[in-house]
Structures are given as C-alpha cells and as structure tokens.
C-alpha cells in the first residue's frame, strides 16, 4: 500500500532538492552555533592587550586583533550573538503584531477590515526609518527600545499577507465542509485556518530576519544601535570602516560574516517559498 504524503512532507522533499537553500540552512546553523558556543571556548572578547595592538590574522588570532589588541574572532562571534538575537526578537515582535492584526482584519471582514487595512496603508506611506532614527537618538540607545522600534516598523507587510490569506481561506470549500460537519469556530480556526496560513508566515518570517538585522546594523553604523561594551556586526563594521586604511581585516571579516548570514537567510527564504509553494506577494 502506498503511503500518502502530507503537504509538509512534500514541501520538505522539495526543499531538500534545492541545493542553495540547503547550503544556506547548513551555513546558518554553523554560524549560529559558532556564535552561541564560540565565545565560551575562544579568547575573551573584551580582554585588551595594548602591547600587542592590531595584528593581522595569525595562528594565535585567526582573524587578527583590533587596535586595543582584542581578538577579532571572539569579538565577531560575540557581535554575531547580539545581531542574531536582535534579528530573532524584533522579528518575533513584528510577527506577533502582524499575525494578530492581519488575522483579526481577515476574520472580521467588512467595515472593520476596511478601517484596519486603511490604517496599514497610511502607515506604509510614512518614512518610518526616520522615526526609528529619531527614537534612538532621543531616548538613548536602549536595546529593548531597539527591538520594539524595529518590530513596530516591520509588522505591516506581515499583517497584509496574513489578512489576504485568511480572507481567501475563509471562502474555501473545505472550511464550508468543516462548518457543515458541525465543527466549532475555534476548531475551524486552529485546525483548518491556521495551518494553511502557516506557509506564507514561515516564508515571510525567514525573509524578515535579514531585513531586521540589516536595520539594526544600519542603526549601529550610525552610532544609534547597540552600544559599547556590547557589540554587534554593525558596530564592528563601523569600527572597521574607520580603521580600514591600515587594518583591512577589521572591516573585511565582520562584513563578510554579516553578508554570509544575510545570504543564507535569503536563500533559505527563497527556497522555502518555492518549497511551500507560496505565491509571491504583490507588495
């Protein structure tokens, strides 16, 4: 007897065939693991060695040291921790706001939906990055404010996507069938609607993480994001770009690691989109 395939196992099968997406996922796992566990094993990220100063990559310091003699590998791994954490937490904030808002608008429909989505349209037209910059300048470089500010900017597209999905699923026959079978509203929502919204949400979440990390690095580069003694890839790139004339490695390695992470996330996101067969959103 032949076993049936669930849509999820089909998607997994398709994803496994996509080499770039798979390479992205593996690279991402390695990077995340290195950032999570690396600082435990490697040299201290804040231990200074002023006599040493900035030295190019060597056996003792694989990526070299910065002008204060701190090990760049340790600093890059530690900075990666913060960057990845900002990426995940701020994306989660955006996800929570966006999915709730979009689902409510989609479910209720009618006038409520029209008003809610009009608000999203208006917010879309606002120059949000400018307000994030103002917020960060005015209210200090608080990392929780950073999560909130970035999350508050990035939820709009998620709300649109979820609303569109809920609207179209609501009208499908299998929902009608479920209702005809006498299922309760809660069961319909959790058992039938949400699993079908999950695909686009997963895909878009994967693509939001790099956008968020980019915004954090952008702010840090302007000196408005993560503050010393904490460090993120944006901070390291900023420091590196100031000293690159003499010490190229300070710019090149953090920049390369950051770009590689963005690469992996984007390839994985694109792969997931193809695998889960999510039609590209029009926005």
């Amino acid at each position, binding site marked *: 007897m032949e076993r049936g395939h669930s849509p999820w196992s089909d998607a997994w099968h398709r994803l496994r065939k996509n080499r770039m997406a798979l390479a992205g996922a593996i690279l991402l796992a390695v990077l995340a693991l290195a950032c999570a566990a690396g600082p435990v094993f490697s040299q201290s990220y804040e231990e200074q060695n002023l006599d040493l100063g900035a030295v190019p990559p060597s056996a003792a310091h694989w990526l070299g040291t910065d002008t204060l003699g701190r090990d760049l590998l340790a600093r890059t791994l530690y900075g990666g921790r913060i960057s990845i954490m900002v990426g995940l937490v701020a994306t989660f904030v955006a996800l929570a706001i966006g999915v709730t808002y979009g689902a409510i608008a989609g479910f209720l429909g009618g006038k409520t939906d029209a008003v809610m989505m009009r608000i999203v349209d208006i917010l879309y037209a606002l120059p949000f990055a400018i307000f994030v*910059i103002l917020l960060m300048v005015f209210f200090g470089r608080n990392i929780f404010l950073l999560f909130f500010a970035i999350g508050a900017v990035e939820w709009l597209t998620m709300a649109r996507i979820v609303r569109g999905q809920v609207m179209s699923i609501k009208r499908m026959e299998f929902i009608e069938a479920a209702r005809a079978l006498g299922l309760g509203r809660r069961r319909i929502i959790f058992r039938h609607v949400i699993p079908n919204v999950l695909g686009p949400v997963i895909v878009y979440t994967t693509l939001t993480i790099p956008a968020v990390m980019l915004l954090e*690095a*952008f702010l840090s*580069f302007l000196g408005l994001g993560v503050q010393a003694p904490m460090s993120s890839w944006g901070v390291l*790139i900023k420091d*590196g770009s100031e000293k690159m004339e003499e010490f190229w490695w300070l*710019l090149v390695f953090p920049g390369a690691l950051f770009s590689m992470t*963005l690469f992996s996330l984007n390839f994985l996101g694109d792969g997931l989109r193809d695998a889960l067969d999510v039609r590209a959103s*029009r926005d």
Partner: protein
Amino acid sequence: MIRFVVQRLLQTIPVIWVIITATFFMIRFVPGGPFTAEKAVTPEILRNLEAHYGMNKPLYRQYLDYAWSLLRGDLGPSFKYPTRSVNEIIADKLPVSMELGLVSLAVALGVGLPLGVLAAVKRNSWIDYVCSSVAMVGICVPTFVLGPLLILVFAIHFGQFNASGWFGPMDWVLPSITLGSVYAAYVARLTRGGMLEVLSQDYIRTARAKGASETRVVLKHALRGGLTPVVSFLGPAIAGIVTGSFVIETIFQIPGIGREFINSATNRDYTLVLGTVILYAGFIIGMNLVVDIALVWLNPRLKFE
C-alpha cells in the same frame, strides 16, 4: 483620473499634519534641549536665549506659532547655526543630496532593468543564473560594507577616485554605485519576475504570431506590463535611497541634508529636525502618490480597486 488624483492628494493632508504634530511634540518631550550641551550658560543667558526663540511661551502657543510660519513657508531659525534659517540650510544642502539620489536611482534602473529583462528572456540559461546571482550579491552586501570596501579598493589601493568629498562627477561614482546597487538588485529580480509572467500570456503569443521580431515583442509589448512590479517598488526604493543617503553621506563625507538630519537630531536643533522631517515626509509621500498614479496609468483596472 483627475478625481483619483485629487482624492489621493486630499488624503495626504491629514497624514502630513499628523507627522508634523507628532514630531513637534516628540522632540519637546525628550530629555535635553538645544542649549544643554553648552556648558557655561548662566541662567540669565539661558532665559534670554529661550525668549529669543520664543521658547518661554506655553507649548501650545509655540506649536501654533510654528504652524502659522510653516503655512507661510518659513521653517524658522536654526538653533545651532544662530545666523542661518532652516530654509537656508536646506537650500544649501538639498541639491547635493538630490544629485546623489538621482544618480543612484539612475544606477539602480540602468543596471537593474537590462539585467532583469535579459534574465527573463534567457530564462534558465547560464545568463539567467549569473544575473540572479549578481542580484543576490547586491541584496546581501549592505551599503555600509560595500561603501568602505569600494573606498579601500578604488580610492586607497588604486587611487582612481577620491575617498571623500563632493566636487565633481568623478566623486559621484563610488557613492552612487554603493547606494544604487541594492536597488539595482531588487529591480533586476522584480523585472525578471514581471517579464516572465507577461511573456507567457496570450497577447505576447499573438504578437509573435503576427510576425513581430523578438526584440519588438520584448521591448514594445512585454515591457509595459512587465514593469508593473518595478514601478510599485519605486515608492519603497525612493524612501530607501533617502534613508540610505544618511549612511552614504557619512561614509563618503558628502555635505548633504542626510548628515545634517542626523546631526540636528543629536544636537536637539528642534527647528532643523522638524524642517528635515517635514521635507523627507513630504517628499516620500509625494513620491508614493506619483507611483500610485503611474500604476493606474499603466494598468487602468486598478482604479476600481
């Protein structure tokens, strides 16, 4: 069409009003003021300074005064540059940023459109893969990594360009490539997607059946429909180029309005912050409006949605 434009114009008025009001009160409730940085200011001088700028009046009064002068097109005096008005500062710095933005947009479209069309026409060939990979690189290497790298290679190592400054067209090259590359990449991807969708439609087959040459089919028949996603991306792209210019102007030390905006916020130069925010908001909202109108012009069916 005119009704649509007027309707959209009317909708932007409350939005701009909200932005002005929110910014005005936000900067006032922030700790620190324009005169706190200067150390040796005695209370008497501080009072005189505040009186000079009308800051001793109640806040609502200041708001109304500001709104009134704004209606006459006057953005007020700058707090940090005592002899200059915000209008003068903007008139001085804006042209530089406009040049940077326009050249970057030209790079984005000039590189992105041909790459996208080429990739769509030669679908699944090595040309397509090369174009798509180049686009992915453009998306994943952020401006603040690319900019310093370009300086390192082309200004410091080869000495072809100046590392900073804004004196002539040679100085436009590195900053506009840095700022335009991300958008060139997105434009290429969107053009490819849009063209692929259009190229499989019936009217393209009709054009081919009539014997139109392949170049004519692609450039005359397909491009107009295939451009829709690119045009709708132009709104976000222009907003992104504007905010991206903050970083670019810092990296290449370009005396534009973007750097002035960041400095004014750090200095609590109330009127200059407000002036630049109004400028940016008005510009971005105006551009979104133009994009919406262009979309309806490209695809009249949208008018009824």
